[in-house]
């Protein structure tokens, strides 16, 4: 008998405690587990440390809502939509501390965490000032085999990893459509102590068994799986739908000012009771159809 990992967003988000280190899937405007991010904001979580490779709007929303106080990762940007100004203000005001890593250092730290190794090396970072800023986690070391020095990146084991994917079954086996794979799904859930997955659809296990090569995460490492259509919105879930340019632009405009920031958070995050209400608030079926056609570009 397989264990049923299906949960509501509220139940899934309750796996995240105040102060946790949370690994968050995202690549600029692509594939972030936004429904869980909104739920964490609604539940008023505090002092989260967010781990990200190239994080965008989810980190800006969490910074705006005051749920995070650390960022550990490569960069925070909404690419063509610009800097994440609420995150930036938080850092400049001292409310958010940054432990900046390069991309290979993020991969190495989480990869070591996933493999139960004390560290993994990279040839990145050499000659930059980033090594010196983080001596607890990054050290330039000699190659024991006589080659050039490498940077040892200390294992990072997040309390929770949160990712979004195309489909799963009730046991939490997770499948991805053929797509560009950033490190997040391959590494974050394997490094973290608890794993939350949202998916576009939950299907019968038989459906997954037709294409086991597309399964990227076995159910036994997943703690909660939640069906959330358009769960990555306003980021993209290629090849199902693109990112929402209008929503990014609306956020950029709102984020310029404290009052409009709060109004935005209320309207799109705090007030909609569930995903269906959220989708109505952001334009409903018309918007979703346009995003499925990838009209953003």
């Amino acid at each position: 008998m397989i264990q049923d990992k299906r949960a509501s967003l509220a139940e899934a988000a309750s796996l995240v405690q105040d102060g946790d280190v949370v690994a968050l899937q995202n690549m600029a405007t692509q594939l972030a587990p936004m429904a869980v991010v909104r739920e964490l904001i609604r539940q008023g979580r505090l002092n989260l440390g967010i781990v990200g490779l190239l994080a965008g709007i989810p980190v800006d929303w969490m910074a705006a809502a005051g749920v995070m106080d650390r960022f550990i990762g490569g960069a925070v940007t909404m690419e063509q939509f610009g800097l994440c100004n609420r995150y930036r203000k938080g850092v400049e005001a001292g409310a958010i501390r940054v432990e900046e890593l390069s991309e290979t250092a993020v991969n190495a730290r989480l990869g070591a965490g996933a493999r139960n190794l004390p560290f993994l090396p990279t040839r990145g970072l050499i000659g930059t000032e980033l090594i010196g800023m983080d001596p607890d986690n990054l050290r330039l070391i000699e190659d024991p085999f006589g080659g050039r020095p490498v940077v040892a990146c200390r294992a990072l084991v997040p309390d929770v990893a949160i990712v979004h994917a195309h489909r799963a079954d009730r046991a939490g086996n997770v499948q991805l459509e053929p797509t560009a794979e950033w490190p997040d799904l391959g590494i974050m859930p394997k490094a973290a102590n608890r794993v939350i997955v949202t998916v576009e659809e939950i299907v019968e296990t038989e459906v997954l068994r037709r294409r086991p090569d597309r399964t990227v995460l076995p159910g036994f490492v997943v703690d909660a799986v939640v069906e959330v259509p358009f769960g990555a919105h306003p980021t993209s879930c290629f090849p199902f739908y693109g990112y929402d340019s209008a929503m990014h632009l609306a956020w950029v405009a709102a984020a310029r000012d404290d009052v409009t920031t709060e109004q935005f958070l209320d309207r799109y995050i705090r007030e909609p009771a569930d995903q269906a209400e959220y989708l109505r608030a952001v334009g409903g079926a018309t918007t979703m159809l346009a995003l499925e056609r990838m009209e953003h570009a």
Partner: protein
Amino acid sequence: MATNPTEVPGYGCTIDELMVVTMSRMMGDDTRAFNGAVSFIPVCAYLLARRTHAPELVWAASSIAIDADPKRIPESTLSDALWDGASMLSNSPFDFWAMAQGARYNTFAFRGAQMDRYGNVNNTVIGPYDKPKVRLPGGGGMADLSCMIPRIYLWSTTHDPRTFVERLDFRSGIGWGDGGDHRERLGLPGGPQACVTNMCVFDFEPESKAMRLASLHPGVTVDDVRGATGFDVLVPGGEIPVTAQPDEEEIRLLREEVDPTGARRREFS
């Protein structure tokens, strides 16, 4: 977002087009390139080089989509709309980073909010790291790629003293380091080859590895470049050449095939 591009006097093209063509001509059949975020100028340069003198050039769109051939350049150079026609969507940690760290990719173009005379860049902070005046996005992959990839190209559409500075507030990507043989002593391959700006082209003086004026775009003087650069620009003796004029065919291909919607002008907002 895009503003009206500046005409290049006498060249029948605009400054974005001159920059793309100039960078394109620096690429060859042995170029194996990829690109990061907001990299319209290099993306156009790779695609143009592939259509003209370097048909064998390899380009991985967004560092992911190998040999992509998009019908137009979308508003992002990092996301899916750039991936059309790819022969492979590579997986980032195991495909892309293996080929980057192994220098199977050999060419990368990047830039920073600040750049210094040795082609080091800052995308991390203005002011102290722990209490920044401005928190920038972060170095991301650049902090790795700057020390892995042998042929580095820099570009800037905002040639001014805020961008080209005497001293970086933070070194988040390495060019020639402290100059001279510093990069080599660190065991890092190659280094910056050139920097293409909206005013001129810099190369790097072979001994000191400092930026040196290689050519001026039409209408720009040495004093203009000096005034717009926060460090002392190396100016070789004799007449400084004018940046070569693009061919009609290069301009046609760029306008009609590579980038028909003018996405490259997004870098000039």
